[in-house]
Each structure stands twice: as structure tokens, then as C-alpha cells.
């Protein structure tokens, strides 16, 4: 058994020798900051989405609650808080009460491993000095940070699933069955595209991944080819149940989906969790592929250099913003997919593509590690492409055979 | 005082015992599956405790394999349960004697 204290265990940079109030203060401060960012960010996101969607639809959007309607989310929250609560008679009371928290807590916890900023000027590695302590601007930095996020996102399924089941009526059940199938399916594609990043960065810790992207060419967006990024973006949208993958709560089909029977504060928790997930997953995307708080240097000009140590945070916010906008854009533009199309996209497109790309990159990495000559390197690549091509042909052939069989036998699954 | 390897092993034993008891008590095939998972977890716990104890990473490797096998087992088991339940809703293990000679 190790004798290490639990807090430094998740934050290896912290100097454990001087175990006095400074580390405690730092950790406390970080918890506070993360909490506030989570809540304010969510409030902002709700407002942002409604405003942007309104803008895209030639409307004005909320403008009665507070200046520019900024307090709209607050009003929604207060109203929901003071609304009558109800637990349906046929519901499973305990699970019904538990489910919103199962949805909400993981959404919050993801924030704990996201690097929220740091000092990257002049090639520094993102550590900052607070109260005389060297630390990272990140609540926890466990060696398996990325896996932790994956684990949390797989826990998030429970909230949705149990909510639908415990409501004791049909539409929510339908919604939750959809949700669980969808989330399990896309987890695989998510993991595979993530693996390419891990391979490129050579570490599982989020801070390590950020440090590994210190130049634009090292941003995993570019260094892993754009494919994993795209796969990740799509799979993440699906994981988040955002349009066009929002079948779980497709109003037109299954009313409110899993949260149909929820009202009041419990519904607010789902609402909050959904939007918080959007932000935290966007932050994760930025961390993995866009260098997180790393500045985008134009030459050697840093846009947020004036902010000093907070420059990293500003960069992170800017990048996250970009993706929030992309999500809202998706919502405003794309029609919803159908259930079988969703599954087809996940299993027949995203997973094979992510897997193939991963194999390709792995081969390249192998070549680089073994210092192959130019010729053999090219040969390796060609070999890979041939193998992948064959795999693709085999795959399409298998699909068409399966389809023919299904048409002939009329098999149902 | 800090927990020793022995305490982990005892915990593992308890968990295994509960799992085994549950397996014998319950009739619902799904819950019985869950009890098997409990027993597997007890084994995992023991593996990791001893791996840490002896600083041998192979214990953790074994856990990895256990998890994979558990996943495979659940997939097949649930498949069987689904196909049985479809034909005979509400069946408990006592009713399932299809393979009896």
C-alpha cells in the first residue's frame, strides 16, 4: 500500500512535501472554480442556444428576462424549482428519484479532469504557480484522465435509462431503450477515435495530452489526420443526444422521451445535465484535438498574451465556444435521423472508419518508431492501404450479403 | 492504521460468499447472472490485491482477461435468456429443462 495522500494522488504535480494549507487552498479554489464554471456555463449555454437558434430563424429570442434575456435560464430554473413535483403512481419511486442525479453528477464530474487553463507562453508546459505551489489549472490530473471521462460518459447512460424505466409508462420506456442502445453503440466509435489521440500523445492523462500539442502541427486535429476528429465529433453529438441524433427526446415521435413524466426540479436536473454535458464534452473535444488551453500562435503572436497566465483559459473558452456554436448550428439545420439510420451510421460507418484509421496510424507510428527507410515506409503505407481496402471490400460485401439474406428470409431482429 | 492485503482478501472472500449464496437462492436467471458477476469481481479484487502486494503486474493482466471473459459470458448468456424468454415469458431457472436428455 502506498502512503501517498489522496489529493496529490490525483494531482501529481503538487508538491506533497509541503503539506500545509496551500495545497488545501488550491484544491478548494479549484473545486469552487470548476463548480461555478459548470453552473454559469450551463446557464449561459441555454441562453446562447436559444438566442443563436432564434437568430438563425430570423427571430429575436428571449429578451424579457434581464438584459438581452440573459436571465432567462435563471427564470426557468427558479420557476422549475418552485413548481409542483410529482412522482407517478406507477413509477418506481426510489429509482425515479435517483435517476436525475445519475444524469447530473457525471456531467459535473467530467469537469474535474479538463485542463481549464495554464501558462503556455514561451513553451512553458502549462503549470502555474499559486501560493508558491506549482500546479496545473485542473482539478484532478489522474494518470487515466481520458479513461475517466469515458467511464463517466458511460455512467451517464444510467440516468437516462433508469428515468425512462422508472416512469412506468410507455413513451419514456421507448425513449430510454433508444437512449441506451444509442449510447452503447456510439461509445465504441468514440473510444476508437480517442485511441488515435492517445497513441499520438503517448499518455492517458489530459494534461499530458495538452502538453503534447504545443505546436499547431502537433494539434491532434492535424497530427492524427482529420478523420478521428470528425468521427469523434459525430459520435459525441450522438452521445450527447443532440440533434440530429436526439431521438431519445424526439418530441414528434415519443413526446418527451425519457423525461416525459418528470417535472419540477428533477426535470431541471436533466435539463441542466444535458447542457452541461454539451459544454464539458466540447471542452474534452478541444482538449483532445485542439490543444485545450494551448494558444493558437500566429507567427509568435498570441492573441491573449495580455492576459498573462489567464491566456490559456481565454483560449480554451474561445475554442469551446466555437463548438457550442457548431452544436447549435446542427440543431437549427439538420433533420433528425431515423433509428435504424442512426445505428447504421454508428456501426457500419463510424466504427469501421475509426478502426481502419487507427490501424493506419498505428502502422505509421510503428514505422516511425523503428526508423524505417523512406522506401520501406512507403511500402508499409501501401501495404496498409491495400489491407484496409480489402477490409472495406469484404465489409461492403458482407453488408450486401446480409441485406440480401434479410430480404429473402425476412429475418427480423 | 491502514488496510493490509489480508483485509482485501477477506473482503474478496465475503463478496464471493455473498455471490455464491445469491446464485443458489435466486431463481431469476438475470439475477443469477449478476451473482456470478459478483463472484468474478471478488476474484478480481483478490488478483489486484495480490498483484499489488507482490509488485507483479501479471495479476492485473489476469483481471483484464477476466473482464473480457465476463463480457463474453454476459453477451452469450443474455442472448440465451432473450431467446428463452421470448418463447416462455416469466420462466425461472427451474422451468428451464430444455437440454435435459
Amino acid at each position: 500500500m502506498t502512503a501517498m495522500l489522496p489529493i496529490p494522488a490525483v494531482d501529481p504535480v503538487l508538491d506533497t512535501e509541503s503539506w500545509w494549507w496551500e495545497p488545501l487552498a488550491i484544491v478548494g479554489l479549484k473545486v469552487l472554480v470548476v463548480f461555478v464554471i459548470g453552473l454559469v456555463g450551463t446557464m449561459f449555454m441555454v441562453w446562447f442556444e436559444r438566442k443563436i437558434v432564434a437568430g438563425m430563424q430570423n427571430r429575436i429570442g428571449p429578451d424579457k428576462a434581464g438584459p438581452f434575456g440573459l436571465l432567462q435560464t435563471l427564470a426557468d430554473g427558479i420557476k422549475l424549482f418552485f413548481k409542483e413535483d410529482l412522482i407517478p403512481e406507477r413509477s418506481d419511486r426510489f429509482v425515479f428519484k435517483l435517476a436525475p442525479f445519475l444524469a447530473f453528477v457525471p456531467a459535473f464530474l467530467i469537469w474535474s479532469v479538463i485542463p481549464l487553463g495554464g501558462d503556455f507562453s514561451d513553451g512553458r508546459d502549462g503549470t502555474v504557480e499559486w501560493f508558491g505551489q506549482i500546479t496545473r489549472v485542473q482539478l484532478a490530473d489522474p494518470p487515466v484522465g481520458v479513461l475517466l471521462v469515458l467511464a463517466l460518459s458511460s455512467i451517464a447512460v444510467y440516468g437516462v435509462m433508469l428515468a425512462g424505466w422508472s416512469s412506468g409508462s410507455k413513451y419514456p420506456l421507448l425513449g430510454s431503450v433508444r437512449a441506451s442502445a444509442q449510447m452503447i453503440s456510439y461509445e465504441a466509435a468514440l473510444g476508437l477515435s480517442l485511441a488515435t489521440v492517445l497513441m499520438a500523445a503517448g499518455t492517458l492523462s489530459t494534461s499530458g495530452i495538452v502538453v503534447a500539442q504545443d505546436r499547431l502541427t502537433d494539434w491532434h486535429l492535424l497530427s492524427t489526420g482529420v478523420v478521428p476528429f470528425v468521427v469523434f465529433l459525430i459520435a459525441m453529438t450522438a452521445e450527447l443526444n443532440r440533434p440530429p441524433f436526439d431521438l431519445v427526446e424526439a418530441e414528434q415521435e415519443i413526446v418527451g422521451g425519457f423525461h416525459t413524466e418528470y417535472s419540477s426540479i428533477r426535470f431541471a436536473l436533466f435539463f441542466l445535465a444535458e447542457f452541461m454535458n454539451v459544454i464539458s464534452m466540447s471542452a474534452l473535444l478541444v482538449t483532445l484535438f485542439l490543444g485545450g488551453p494551448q494558444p493558437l500562435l500566429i507567427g509568435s503572436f498570441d492573441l491573449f498574451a495580455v492576459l498573462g497566465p489567464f491566456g490559456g483559459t481565454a483560449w480554451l473558452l474561445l475554442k469551446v465556444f466555437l463548438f457550442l456554436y457548431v452544436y447549435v448550428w446542427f440543431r437549427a439545420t439538420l433533420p433528425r435521423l431515423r433509428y435504424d439510420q442512426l445505428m447504421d451510421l454508428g456501426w457500419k460507418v463510424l466504427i469501421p472508419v475509426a478502426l481502419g484509421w487507427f490501424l493506419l496510424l498505428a502502422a505509421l507510428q510503428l514505422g516511425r518508431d523503428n526508423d524505417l527507410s523512406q522506401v520501406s515506409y512507403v511500402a508499409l503505407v501501401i501495404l496498409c492501404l491495400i489491407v484496409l481496402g480489402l477490409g472495406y471490400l469484404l465489409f461492403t460485401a458482407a453488408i450486401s450479403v446480409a441485406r440480401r439474406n434479410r430480404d429473402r428470409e425476412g429475418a427480423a431482429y | 492504521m491502514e488496510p493490509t492485503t489480508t483485509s482485501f482478501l477477506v473482503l474478496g472472500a465475503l463478496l464471493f460468499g455473498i455471490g455464491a449464496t445469491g446464485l443458489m437462492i435466486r431463481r431469476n436467471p438475470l439475477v443469477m447472472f449478476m451473482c456470478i458477476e459478483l463472484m468474478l469481481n471478488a476474484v478480481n479484487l483478490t488478483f489486484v490485491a495480490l498483484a499489488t502486494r507482490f509488485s507483479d503486474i501479471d495479476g492485473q493482466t489476469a483481471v483484464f482477461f477476466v473482464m473480457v471473459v465476463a463480457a463474453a459470458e454476459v453477451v452469450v448468456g443474455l442472448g440465451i435468456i432473450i431467446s428463452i424468454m421470448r418463447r416462455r415469458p416469466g420462466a425461472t431457472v427451474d422451468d428451464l429443462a430444455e437440454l435435459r436428455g
Partner: protein
Amino acid sequence: MGAVGDVLSDGLGGLSHNVITGRIEDLVKWARSRSSWPASFGLACCAIEMMATGAAHYDISRFGMEVFRASPRQADIMIVAGRVSQKMAPVLRQVYDQMMEPKWVISMGVCASSGGMFNNYAIVQGVDQIVPVDVYAPGCPPTPETLIHAIETLHGLIESGEIMRRREVTGAGADVHVQEIPATSVPVLLGSS
């Protein structure tokens, strides 16, 4: 009213105290009036105008109301838009019962308010026989402007607490049933079969 009140006069204008010392009730009333999600209960012609109110030209989202909830559990206002038939009446009542307190009803259009021109066996002569109505929007169908006026009126009533006060006095809260005329046996079953 301090600086806070001035800054937020746009939104918190209804508050007579400043935010910190103000009674929480005021805050709640403010929140309720600023965020009243409608249950989509479109029935006939009026539903079209109700939806038009949500569209670009009129934009109900300014009041934070573009969140049409499909599930009555999460809705605050039921806008009964259109004629309510005898067959629909039980459903209407059921949806109303499924809504959570506090809840309000806007009766949109003359058909919902009084049966309108359809004074016959099929139509419920006024939806207030089934659910308590807070605001009536006249018109056949009411234009989006009329509906917005009705919504604004309701918001005003919510924010001033008028509706709550009235219910305290008369006991006619939304959860107390208005003396109910059974929806299925209005005296119209005169013909022989």
C-alpha cells in the same frame, strides 16, 4: 431601488425591493412570469395562429415561451387553441390534470371561450366548463397580436400576484375544480336514435 434595480430594470422591473432583500415570492413571481412554458394544445384554426405566434414574425420566444412542451408535466400554461368537441373534452381535462401546479389556462378564440359560431351538439360551449380559464383571447381566430396580448395580460397577472390573490379569496384555485358540468351530457341529446 438601488443600482441593481436600474441595471436590471428591463427584467426585474416588477420587483419593488432590491434583489437581495426582496421577498423570495417576488423573485418566484418574476421567474414564473418570465418563463411560462406552454403545453402545446392545438386543436383547430387557432392552433395555426398559435404556431404562427411562435414563428419569425411574432416570436413568442421573446417571453421565454418558445419551449412548447410536449409533456404536460413540464408545462405551465395551457393554451386551448380551438374548438373543443365533446369527444375531446375528457382528454383536455386529463391533460390539464396532468399539468403541475402552478398552471394557467388561456382560452384562445371564441370557440374555446364560448363555442363561437358552433352552437351545436358537438362542441363544448366554452372550455371554462371543463377547466378554469385565466385569460380569454377573443377572435376567430385571434391574430397573433391578440394572443400575445393575452399572454402579456397573464404574465402581468402572474407577476403582480393577482391570480394567486384571487384564488385565495374565492377558493377557485387551479386545483379547485370549477363547478363542473359533465362534459358528456350537455342537454343536447334530444334526438331519437
